[in-house]
């Protein structure tokens, strides 16, 4: 018999590290979501309120995070930016993730040529960076929230299709799938009843990671002016605007960037923590 204990009782050090990652991820992501939701009903000042008299005021002198070149309150803008960023990311991952998951499940169930074709198609879409496809879309559709959502979602489809197909292919040869076939169940029912629950942890982990990536991409798009149109503030555009005032008002470049980094960091920690708790296969070293 081979000696390969998977999880050993008393392996405290790693289990503490696991749960601390999960807690950190949950806290950061939770706070972020709360801020985004609060911004819908309350911000310290209306984020679009222009007060030229107070333009480029340093943090704490006027508002918690200072004001921008038009005297708008940076904190309020960051808060609304959180909502804009999160909602876009969630919508994109929801669309791309569900389409990709269905495609991946189908490819794994069909096997053979359909699977090969689907994966080839994924390779091709994967070769187009989301920023470039957003540029293509933006050139014709005009810029806006939906351009960003569609561009990101299109990129998410092959990502999820690949992950799901890969995970589902590991499940299909298992004997319990064979038993379900022997029980007279068809590929559709098997995919839903047996395959999906058994790969759900991988999908959940992927969702958190891709949410982080979507936030990054959304920020990049709005940095290039391909995101939500003004005046509604986005983190990316705030950074783009700050470029002109790097010397006079460095805080303008710090606050939104930190917000992006924290959001992505929180989601990644959450993903890591979930991965460790949902599928604790971390092997022990010899």
């Amino acid at each position, binding site marked *: 018999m081979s000696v390969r204990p998977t999880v050993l009782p008393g392996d405290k050090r790693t289990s503490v590290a696991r749960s601390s990652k999960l807690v950190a991820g949950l806290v950061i992501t939770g706070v972020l979501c709360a801020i985004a939701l609060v911004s819908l009903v309350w911000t310290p000042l209306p984020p679009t309120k222009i007060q030229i008299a107070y333009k480029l005021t340093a943090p704490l002198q006027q508002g918690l995070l200072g004001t921008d070149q038009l005297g708008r309150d940076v904190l309020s803008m960051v808060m609304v930016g959180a909502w804009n960023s999160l909602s876009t990311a969630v919508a994109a991952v929801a669309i791309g993730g569900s389409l990709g998951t269905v495609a991946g499940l189908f490819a794994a169930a069909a096997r*053979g*040529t359909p699977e*090969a074709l689907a994966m*080839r198609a994924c390779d091709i879409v994967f070769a187009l960076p989301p920023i470039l496809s957003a540029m293509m879309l933006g050139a014709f559709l005009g810029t806006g929230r939906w351009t960003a959502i569609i561009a990101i979602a299109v990129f998410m489809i092959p990502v999820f299709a690949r992950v799901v197909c890969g995970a589902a292919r590991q499940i299909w040869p*298992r*004997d*319990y799938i*064979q*038993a*379900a*076939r*022997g*029980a*007279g*169940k068809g590929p559709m029912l098997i995919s839903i009843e*047996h395959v999906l*629950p*058994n790969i759900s942890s991988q999908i959940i982990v992927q969702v958190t990671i891709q949410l982080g990536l979507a936030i990054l991409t959304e920020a990049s798009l709005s940095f290039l002016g391909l995101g939500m149109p003004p005046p509604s503030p986005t983190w990316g555009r705030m950074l783009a605007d700050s470029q002109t005032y790097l010397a006079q008002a460095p805080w303008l470049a710090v606050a939104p960037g930190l917000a992006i980094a924290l959001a992505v960091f929180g989601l990644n920690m959450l993903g890591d923590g979930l991965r460790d708790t949902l599928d604790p296969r971390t092997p022990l070293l010899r």
Partner: protein
Amino acid sequence: MPPPLVEIANLTRDFRNHRFFGISQTTRALDDVTLQIDQGSIFGIVGESGSGKSTLARLMVALDRPTSGKVVFDGEDIFSLPAAALRHHRRNFQMVFQDPFGSLDPRQKVGRIIGEPLHVFASQSARGRVSERVAAMLENVGLPATAADLYPHQFSGGQRQRIAMARALITEPKLVVADEPVSALDLSVQAQILNLVLDLRDTQGVTFVFISHNLAVIDCIADKVGVMHSGRLVEVGPAHEVFDQPRHPYTHELRASALSLDNEIGANPVAARRRQTPLGKLTGGCAYYAQCPIAVARCSVERPQLRPDGTGRLVACHQVASVTE
């Protein structure tokens, strides 16, 4: 004499590894197998890895489709049935798998796992009684009815194999094909499962096809045995007779290599035997030719057919056939 429950005729299965571009290769996993399985018997199939025994098992329960040949179950050719009829027919033949850890969905409770076939096969009115039937079946295989509310990982290997047995039997099938059901189990638990198979055959009248690489297990449990080598059946006959007096040289080799408690290594070494690495696929001829100690020139070109040797056994060997001719 009642007709056989299963009649397998010229069953062949090729596996082709598909390529997106270029040539695809074909491997013949099962080669022209003809076989009959009597009602109420335990039919043992013995062979080494790659002998095609698992492929045969999957075909018998229609988990795979043959390249050619047919399986007639209870008078019906199962591969010519329309999909819906085949699905309905599946309740009559079920399978038990080797790995007790891979054959139960880890995300479902035992009650749901065992009841799964009923959800497809049972009529709407009978579904309400699923939990009763699951409880009864759990008792049949020696587990408490409370097991239904637990998850598979809460059981040991032997108990899981009992659960797998319960799932296979819940549709009251006529045939259960068990593919190496005790190979993954500890010796002290193995005997429990073998006894369970014997009990179930006696009480429920189920016909078993029992596959194993272990001669002792087959000798212990089977009425008749088929010996497989390279996708072909080389010898079929009553289990005790086949193992006491093997006629095919391959059966002989298997018998000689099995280690019992009074064997001693070095007493009669195998080294003297002619041994070569198999040279790819032989087109004609006997697949055992390269290793066979009694092969003659004819064996390399002409494939021996499985035929009666005159003592109630079927053997596929030119040398054996020539004895009786």
